[in-house]
């Protein structure tokens, strides 16, 4: 089984889907000859040509909107937003159009578009190349938001997103792109959207998280194991709509829950996870639900010391886990 980085798994998923289905195509800024600013579409232009790997004008609303038109026609567009930060001009298209088309047309039309975007900080990307934007979209019924935590999941989830009959936002952590590597099967597999995944079994505390923070939690859990603290880790994988059953089960498992997200704390996806736990797990909890998140400041700072202070890290996760275990 080949070892792949997170970004190679993303590319491989697109390649396989484009080979499988003529209707799948890629559009976005610099996705063609250059292969994307992060190289997510590397090699696709050479393999599939300019008709299927399309360099678009620098216009995010048109990238989404043209993709929506093609999806409603019956194509399978994969639209790339160069950075999640730059998805904002396309919000009207994504929320007002893509997420509502099936509903408002009484199921007569659908919009099977996948919109990929790299998110997240810790890469010295500064204000406009570091943001987490999932919460902006995470209360829009009709949309699905997928955020994989490792290369294996990235491939299987992206393939599922491309095949999904509804619009999917697919956020890839840009720091994970080259940081995370593992064995990824060459064969065709999909991971179901909407299902969370237990990444580690444990009995003392539960960490619920997604994206790159899953890796941080796994690192921290290893260390705490040496101290005799056993950690249960649930990876949400899909942050909208949430897998409520898995969340409730994971919370009840240990009765002590830490929610981790890199996004700003207030109004994050984790606020909703916390509400689900409070609605369902009152008598199973042994401590208040804890949240570790980015601070409620408008943007990721550029200054190195400040960026480090902002970012969730393995050390911070470890400290928060230990505090919870000792509660």
């Amino acid at each position, binding site marked *: 089984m080949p070892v792949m980085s997170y970004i190679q798994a993303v590319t491989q998923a697109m390649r396989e889907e484009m080979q499988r289905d003529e209707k799948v195509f890629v559009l976005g800024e610099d996705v063609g000859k250059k292969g994307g600013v992060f190289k997510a579409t590397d090699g696709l232009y050479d393999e599939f040509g300019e008709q299927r790997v399309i360099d678009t004008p620098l216009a995010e609303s048109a990238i989404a909107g043209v993709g929506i038109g093609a999806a409603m*026609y019956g194509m399978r567009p994969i639209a790339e937003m160069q950075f999640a930060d730059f998805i904002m001009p396309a919000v009207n298209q994504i929320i007002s159009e893509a997420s509502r088309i099936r509903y408002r047309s009484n199921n007569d039309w659908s919009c099977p578009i996948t919109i990929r975007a790299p998110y997240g900080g810790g890469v010295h990307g500064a204000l406009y190349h570091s943001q987490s934007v999932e919460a902006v979209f995470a209360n829009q019924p009709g949309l699905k938001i997928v955020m994989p935590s490792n290369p294996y999941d990235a491939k299987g989830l992206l393939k599922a997103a491309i095949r999904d009959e509804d619009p999917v936002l697919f956020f890839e952590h840009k720091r994970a792109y080259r940081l995370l590597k593992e064995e990824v099967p060459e064969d065709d597999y999909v991971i179901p959207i909407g299902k969370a995944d237990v990444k580690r079994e444990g009995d003392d505390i539960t960490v619920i998280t997604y994206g790159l923070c899953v890796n941080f939690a796994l690192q921290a859990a290893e260390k705490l194991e040496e101290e005799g603290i056993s950690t249960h880790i649930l990876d949400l994988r899909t942050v909208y709509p949430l897998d409520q059953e898995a969340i409730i089960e994971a919370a009840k498992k240990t009765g002590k829950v830490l929610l981790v997200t890199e996004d700003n704390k207030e109004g994050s996806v984790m606020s909703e996870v916390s509400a689900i736990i409070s609605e369902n797990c009152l008598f199973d909890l042994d401590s208040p639900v804890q949240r570790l998140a980015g601070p409620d400041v408008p943007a990721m700072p550029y200054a190195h010391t400040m960026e480090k202070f902002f970012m969730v890290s393995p050390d911070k996760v470890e400290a928060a886990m230990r505090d919870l275990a000792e509660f």
Partner: protein
Amino acid sequence: MEEQFPIIKVMDDEGKLVDPDVQIDSELVKKLYYHMTRIRLFDRKAISLQRQGRIGTYPPYEGQEAAQVGSVMALNGGDWVFPTYRDHGATLTFGADMVRTFLYWNGRAEGCVPPEGKNIFPAAVPIATQIPHAVGTAWAEKRKGTDHVALVYFGDGATSEGDFHEGLNFASVFQTPTVFFNQNNRYAISVPVEKQMHSKTIAQKGLAYDIPSVRVDGNDVLAVYEETQKAVKRARQGEGPTLIEAVTWRTGAHTTADDPTKYRPEAQGESVVHPLDRLERLMKNENLWDEAWINQVQLELENEVEVAVEAMENYPKANPEDLFDHVFETLPEQLDEQKQSYLDLIGRG
């Protein structure tokens, strides 16, 4: 710019041919008259139904019948139509079902469903969002190698939106078979076009994108038909997009919730000759006015509208719990549970 983009006319306000030597297709004229009359009857009926509380808020298109009928009649069956909320005159003419169109204005999602094989997108309500869709669909048709075109409607206000410019640019770069059909009805709710833009025309906006653009008298159905036909032909032949500005006039309010006397100068629009009156004058001038046929058409269409209203009103009431249908292809488990809990709340679980 007005000189560079003169308003193209086939007939004047008196229904006289601008070029007396031009040959008129009498069958076409009758068809245009038929459809314009039909959609006018629908429109007036809808206003009346709204006033009686029998349908919801309604945006009339009176005054724009020539622009809508003339343009949509230039299309073929396999082409694509992207309407806004004020373009159901065009979609009705293209083949949308009249009962469903009434249902739409009575708040029913079923109203968005076009007849099988009719490529009519659900009407866009956010302004200009449908413009990139028409580019995407046209691009897909081009890639597939068909000769189908996509015609997208939008108003004067929409030309201020980013999606208008992004869509035009994209269509220009990829030379998609898209016809951008603007109905400049002079008002975006209460804001006159003179305040919407400093540009003297909308057609000139195509220049920046190297898109052939024309300005046509939107109340002259023959001129609209001819210019749209040319644009459609170019698109079919792989010659790319066209921008058409049809200069017209919104006779009534923005919607039935709006009162234009609050913002329009009193006499404004009084001199505008209604497109149907113009066509009537032309038909009389050209000896195409057959009183018996006219009366027959009138009766037939009034009856069609009445029957459609009755069918709309007898349509089964919406089942409240259908509210949860079609959020996704398959209902997520928790949404199903939510549905159950809402039903429990009203004692129907």
